[in-house]
């Protein structure tokens, strides 16, 4: 029997070390000290990052998109997630959050009470945001309306229902290195920021491995099945559209055949149509620079 006791002790130690190594990370408020918030820039970050596309009420349009009451569902191979209320209501939403809480959520995927968020909140993209971006974003979000609708629970079966297990996922896949590396022109650098950090294009357009991590290299942005069942996320690597055609798509939603963007991409277009023509050109330049070598 002695071996069994030893084995269990060893297993507990391994688990404890594992939990220690993969514990939710946070930064102190010092990180953001001295940064002054710029709400107008925060609005740009908010739009380019598509926060409302997920956190608005299903089907909301125009002004109603700014009521971030949550409730939309996101089916995945691990279960169905529901976007929480992130409006300025202090009870139901995040009205009582400081900028550092938002930083920890978006950069580390860690909640104020120190647990892991699911990567369906695309922090594997937002990890690339600068502290200044998050301070500005926070200031802007605090100007949005409050809504008291309580957040709905996720429908995620065991073992994925255990948030602690996400530490391992983060260890494997959460990386603050840019995917597109090397000497980049100012336009491509901006394009990379819009695509990899804010627009989280890879969340849809990049295939995933069995553990739900993005494939990189030549497979980055090479298209993926849609976990919601219908349709696929197109391959952007072999896309034969000109840069001008990609810009037009992001502006009006028109494809080169003058059909219009559908599915979730229509929401992305609604966001990118609000950015500047230079920004859309930067995104097009990034897409044209694929594949990643």
């Amino acid at each position, binding site marked *: 029997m002695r071996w069994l006791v030893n084995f269990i002790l060893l297993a507990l130690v391994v688990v404890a070390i594992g939990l220690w190594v993969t514990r939710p990370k946070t930064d102190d408020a010092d990180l953001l000290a001295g940064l002054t918030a710029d709400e107008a820039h925060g609005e740009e970050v908010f739009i380019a990052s598509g926060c409302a596309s997920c956190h608005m009420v299903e089907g909301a349009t125009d002004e109603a998109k700014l009521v971030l009451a949550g409730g939309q569902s996101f089916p995945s191979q691990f279960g169905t997630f529901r976007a929480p209320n992130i409006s300025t209501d202090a009870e139901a939403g995040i009205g009582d959050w400081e900028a550092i809480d938002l930083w920890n959520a978006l950069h580390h995927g860690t909640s104020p009470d120190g647990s892991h968020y699911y990567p369906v909140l695309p922090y594997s993209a937002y990890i690339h945001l600068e502290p200044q971006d998050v301070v500005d974003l926070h200031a802007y979000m605090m100007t949005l309306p409050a809504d008291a609708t309580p957040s709905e629970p996720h429908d995620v079966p065991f073992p994925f229902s255990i948030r602690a297990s996400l530490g391992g996922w983060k260890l494997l896949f959460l990386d603050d290195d840019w995917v597109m590396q090397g000497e980049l022109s100012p336009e491509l650098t901006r394009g990379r920021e819009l695509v990899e950090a804010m627009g989280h294009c890879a969340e849809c357009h990049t295939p995933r491995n069995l553990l739900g991590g993005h494939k990189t290299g030549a497979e980055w942005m090479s298209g993926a099945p849609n976990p919601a069942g219908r349709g*696929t996320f197109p391959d952007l690597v072999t896309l034969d559209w000109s840069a001008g055609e990609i810009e037009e798509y992001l*502006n009006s939603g028109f494809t080169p055949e003058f059909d219009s963007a559908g599915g979730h991409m229509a929401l992305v277009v609604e966001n990118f149509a609000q950015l500047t023509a230079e920004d859309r050109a930067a995104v097009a330049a990034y897409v044209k620079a694929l594949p990643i070598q």
Partner: protein
Amino acid sequence: MTMMKPLALGLATAALVAGAAIAESHAETPPAVGARKAQMQLYAFNLGTLGAMVQGNMDYDADAATAAAGNIVKLSTLAAGPMWAPGTGADAVEASRALPAIWENMDDVISKAMALNEAAMAMETAAAEGLEPLQAAMKDLGAACGACHKEYREPE
């Protein structure tokens, strides 16, 4: 807007006029589906002219631009009712991507069709004014097409 009346009336009477008559066999594609797709293709064809100018693949030409935009306006005023006969949606017809929700929310579909009519008229005005106004109008026109596709067309 005088043009909108026939449009709205046309769509609203869809259920009454065309109901049982056209919603017959599922094996063949009903003519209504072909007709509305043809209307959509004509939108796309005329947008091709405007798009070529916007993207700099064709020199700006006020007459050509106004003619193309004018066609889009006219197309958006066709009495559309019979083209959207009940029973011709994606749930019944293999070749269609029209979501059944269309027939449950006809009022909203009509308002989206009217929004397109307005955006098309704004484009017609802009197309005569110059390239920059034309470029700016493209966004709203695209949004009007997209708003209806987002709600009422099955993704590919």
